[in-house]
């Protein structure tokens, strides 16, 4: 089979399986196999999603969530890459920070909300900072690892051919770590979405998480599912977008370039 037709085959399955699942759901809800109060028919959910979009509710909440992700992810990315590079380049920094990171990193991020609220004014800033915490650790860890995994023989060859100091960093160490930095960013972005929704459920009146939670509270189950769907799509789009960006920016990474 040619590559093209094999790719078509894979894509075909990727589309067919969710369609089949939705069709099954539709059928089960329609026949009463699933209780429509908790599992409304996908077509009904789609109609509600349409309503939410038309009256602007959806866009308002979506915009709020996107804004929060934007701020917290940018913060996490800038600090995470900077500190991760530092940890990768300087053993001392790594030795000093590793234990602290190891303790803080596994704590579920939402738990930082009260702590952060002591440090910065509660409200929007606290939300954004809390969301950034886990992403920051992920990005810093992955970046540091990215620097350390660079083939020492490549670095030696680069030095032999006269790369020193800034040149060594910019032409060798940074590009060498970039594939890992991108992986870290992708993970971090995914976690930003997870955490922002969780934090919105706990402590916000706007945003997709808040919309989902409120819909659940007042048993507008269709709206809840509609929001659910939007969050899932958002996650997929962000992750896919970053993967595309990676393929565009890192053409030398074999598994990306060859696909």
């Amino acid at each position, binding site marked *: 089979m040619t590559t093209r037709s094999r790719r078509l085959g894979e894509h075909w399955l990727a589309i067919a399986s969710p369609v089949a699942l939705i069709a099954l759901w539709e059928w089960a809800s329609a026949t009463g196999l699933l209780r429509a109060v908790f599992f409304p028919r996908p077509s009904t959910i789609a109609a509600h999603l349409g309503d939410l979009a038309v009256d602007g509710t959806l866009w308002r909440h979506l915009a709020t969530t996107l804004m929060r992700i934007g701020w917290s992810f940018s913060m996490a990315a800038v600090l995470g890459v900077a500190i991760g590079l530092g940890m990768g380049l300087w053993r001392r920094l790594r030795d000093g920070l590793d234990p602290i990171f190891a303790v803080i990193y596994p704590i579920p991020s939402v738990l930082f909300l009260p702590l952060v609220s002591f440090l910065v004014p509660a409200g929007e800033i606290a939300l954004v900072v809390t969301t950034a915490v886990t992403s920051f650790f992920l990005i810093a860890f992955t970046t540091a690892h990215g620097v350390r995994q660079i*083939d020492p*023989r*490549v670095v*030696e*060859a*680069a030095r*032999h*051919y*006269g*790369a*020193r100091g800034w*040149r060594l960093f910019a*032409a*060798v160490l940074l*590009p*060498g770590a*970039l594939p890992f930095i991108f992986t870290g960013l992708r993970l971090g972005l995914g976690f930003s979405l997870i955490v922002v929704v969780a934090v919105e459920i706990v402590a916000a009146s706007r945003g997709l998480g808040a919309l989902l939670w409120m819909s659940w509270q007042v048993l507008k189950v269709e709206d809840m599912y509609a929001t659910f769907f939007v969050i899932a799509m958002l996650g997929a789009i962000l992750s896919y977008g970053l993967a595309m960006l990676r393929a565009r920016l*890192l*053409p*030398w990474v*074999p598994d990306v*370039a060859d696909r």
Partner: protein
Amino acid sequence: MIVGPDGARQGGERAAKARRVLDEPRLQSSVAARPDHAVEHRRDDIGPWFWPPAAKDIIVPTREPKVLVHEVSVTFESRGRSVVALDRVSLQAHAGEFLCIVGPSGSGKSTLLRVLAGLHPQSSGDVRIRVDRPGTPLTAMVFQEHALLPWRTVRDNVTFGLENRGVARAEREARAREMLGMVGLTRFAAHYPHQLSGGMKQRVGIARALASDPEVLLMDEPLASLDAQTRTIMQEELLRIWSTLGKTVVYVTHSLEEALLLGDRIVLLSARPGRVSRIYPVELGRPRGLEVRASPAYGALLETIWSELRHEVVRAMAADRGTEPDWLGS
């Protein structure tokens, strides 16, 4: 102290102390400290003083030495034990010579090359490389595992050294074109290393070394990882390139046949600790091609060197067995 191409020191601080530009002895330190001084060197500067040739190096140099290795020893510290990798190695390479170094594994062949490249400091002894063209690097190494930068295209890998030295773009591009043409990769200039075969990657490694136009070209088993057919082709290519450019080459290989095909002289290193066991002139004529393998002189020389090398290989194997842990306490 090494005086580099760009007037910068090459290699690590310790390694840097070790290599010196050939010069009048009394001028050594000051010259080393002020690289621009190197401009004053000319071939005839070499004349009056001269390292005495090592006792075992019975070949009387007919040309001026380009590379002088004098009583170089390298000792590695590993887990509190010190291992002597090279023991008072002395040899020289003449300008334009293709010098091959063979020896059993663990004889310090690669270490010697790394010392020449300034990648590893020697524990004692001297390494000197004569500067004929100030402004170019002393050495450029072709690494065994090619060690290309995966994120740079073939062209940008070749120009990397020139970029680091601040050579203007136009000149870099021209040099890259010329060298890629020489190794037959013109059409692959825009490819990334992962898109190339092993043999092609090694061609890029060779082009990169040639592009930086070093005083001495160092090659560390560059063909070892290639399949037999590719290796044969590459050997012919190397001969062609070497005869075109007339570079001084120090070439490490574990293949005696390769050394006989390529080299002007063969330095045989002994099993650890690496010493110069003997130096053989390869009088098989030039230009040399694969057909030389059919000549009786080739067979005789191969036999002579192999009987010696075999002895060293057996010794190396015995030594390896000796260092193995004795699990059962037999």
